């Protein structure tokens, strides 16, 4: 199966965590958000990273391509399957939506277009607000591998982003569908230098920033990122040997 070869290639290149992305484009007919696939269903056993004894970690991610303000309502719905994803990303297509994503929306990642000329310019106030809220900006590198025109757009869009955000809160990820489109983490960090990132920012773009996004996603499942509740499995009630309520020990006053 091609997917397992993709994860094997990731482990061979040295990545320790991989996110499986599910893209929802609202321009098409009304789409339902499916439940995320659990990694154990995908692969019977996760590939082990060579040189370490741990297998790679697989997390789930949802990307919403929004081109209209009404598309964002799904993020506020409490009963949808959105809550089950580890990371939520949004891909705004207009300037107004970019502003809304940076300031209001409860997401972890904002994707930057790399396959076409930027439809809007980045401005400093919304970008700074996003950085304060702990939201990261994502640049893809696989389109740049496939085509030289997209390479130009990738570099120019990434350069304008980095100029405005000063290299903070940027991650570089692949959108790989095949193992050949993947590159090693240190090579991707070198690519970050072309985008205008400094050496340490480029390395952080593949390591520490990604960990921060995972933690940001976890806080959505908790109360303000401090308290985490988990349903305790109920023990099966037994017929005898249950203490009657009146014999419960008295608590100290």
């Amino acid at each position, binding site marked *: 199966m091609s997917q397992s070869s993709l994860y094997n290639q990731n482990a061979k290149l040295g990545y320790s965590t991989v996110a499986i992305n599910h893209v929802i484009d609202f321009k098409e007919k009304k789409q339902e958000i499916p439940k995320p696939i659990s990694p154990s269903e995908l692969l019977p056993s996760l590939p082990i990273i060579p040189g370490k004894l741990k297998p790679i970690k697989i997390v789930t991610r949802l990307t919403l391509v929004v081109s209209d303000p009404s598309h964002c309502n799904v993020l506020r719905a409490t009963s949808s399957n959105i809550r089950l994803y580890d990371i939520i990303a949004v891909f705004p297509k207009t300037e107004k939506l970019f502003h809304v994503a940076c300031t209001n929306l409860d997401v972890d990642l904002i994707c930057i277009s790399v396959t076409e000329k930027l439809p809007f310019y980045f401005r400093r106030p919304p970008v700074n607000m996003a950085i304060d809220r702990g939201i990261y900006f994502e640049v893809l590198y696989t389109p740049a591998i496939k085509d030289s025109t997209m390479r130009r757009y990738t570099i120019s869009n990434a350069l304008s982003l980095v100029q405005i955000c000063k290299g903070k809160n940027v991650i570089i990820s692949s959108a790989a569908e095949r193992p050949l489109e993947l590159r090693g983490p240190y090579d991707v960090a070198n690519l970050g230098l*072309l*985008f205008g990132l400094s*050496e340490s920012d480029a*390395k952080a773009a593949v390591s520490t920033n990604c960990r921060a996004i995972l933690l940001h996603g976890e806080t959505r499942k908790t109360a303000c990122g401090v308290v985490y509740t988990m349903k305790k499995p109920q023990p099966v009630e037994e017929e005898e040997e249950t203490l009657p309520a009146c014999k419960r020990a008295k608590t100290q006053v």
Partner: protein
Amino acid sequence: MSAPLRRLRETPRHLLVCERSHVRHERSRHAARVRGHAYNCRVSFLIPECGVLPEPLKSVTTDMGEYYLVKNLPLHELVAQEFISAFVKTGSCYALTYNTRIDQDNTAALLPTGKLILSVDKDTYEELGLQGRPSRYSGKKVMRYSADGSTLMSYFSKHQIQAHQPKITFSTLRNLQCPVLCSNELQGKPEESCSAQELFEWLGAVFSNVELDNKSFSFVSTYCCPEPSTMMDQAYLCTITGFILPEKIIQLLDQLCAYFDEPKLAQWVTLTVHGFADSPVSWRENEHGFQKGGENLYNFVVFRSLDYWLQMAVGANDDCPP
């Protein structure tokens, strides 16, 4: 637009410290430098104009000593009473975690002085509540911490322990272009001798088996041997890979100095020692990190007159060598 282009032209930060002295000088610190660099994974020496290795050198290289690999050893075993009294107090004990990457995982190193250095990531640091300080090379977000702990070890018979012998390879290089060096001139004199940096790069090219003559069809490298240079018929290159103790390296260095007791064609010999890319410390307790490459190595050039040059090099996330 010009700032990223300017940055692209710069090479990543690296440091090369060169010093010059004489082996028999009473204040020469070559032995101290060797002893300070605890974790060595590869030792190579190059003897120009030599076809056959002399006997004393050969016996030192084959007698490099065993090293042991213990799998799945919990670190608390390193801190048990028996081990300290059995190993650490009696002699010098060196240990380093294997197959862990310093920029991702937790690494531990036991120094011969009895100090245990732990380099841990943020989660482990907070979980364990260790007392330590943030690493100097984490950038703005601190991710790695170093902590010291007193060391205690116990015997490892209940864990999987394997003994390994260091791997030794010998080769004779033919028709090698070598730079001309003058022991007094570290910076090199134009038209007379090459500088220490040029020698360092040339050595790297030789160890990587790179062609030194810049042929037009070679895509790999356009590197040329620095001028002035001489053509040598043969040179002997020996590489020892494993976990090698500084004491053995000092013995090897002494034998290389003894090589010049009899008259030889060679003007100089070199001894290069590489440290582990994933070790948390480089010299003594200087911190070592892995930015895009974890090099920490040193190189001796011993001349016929027993003058020597010592070059110590580190990569981006490292403290300056002593």
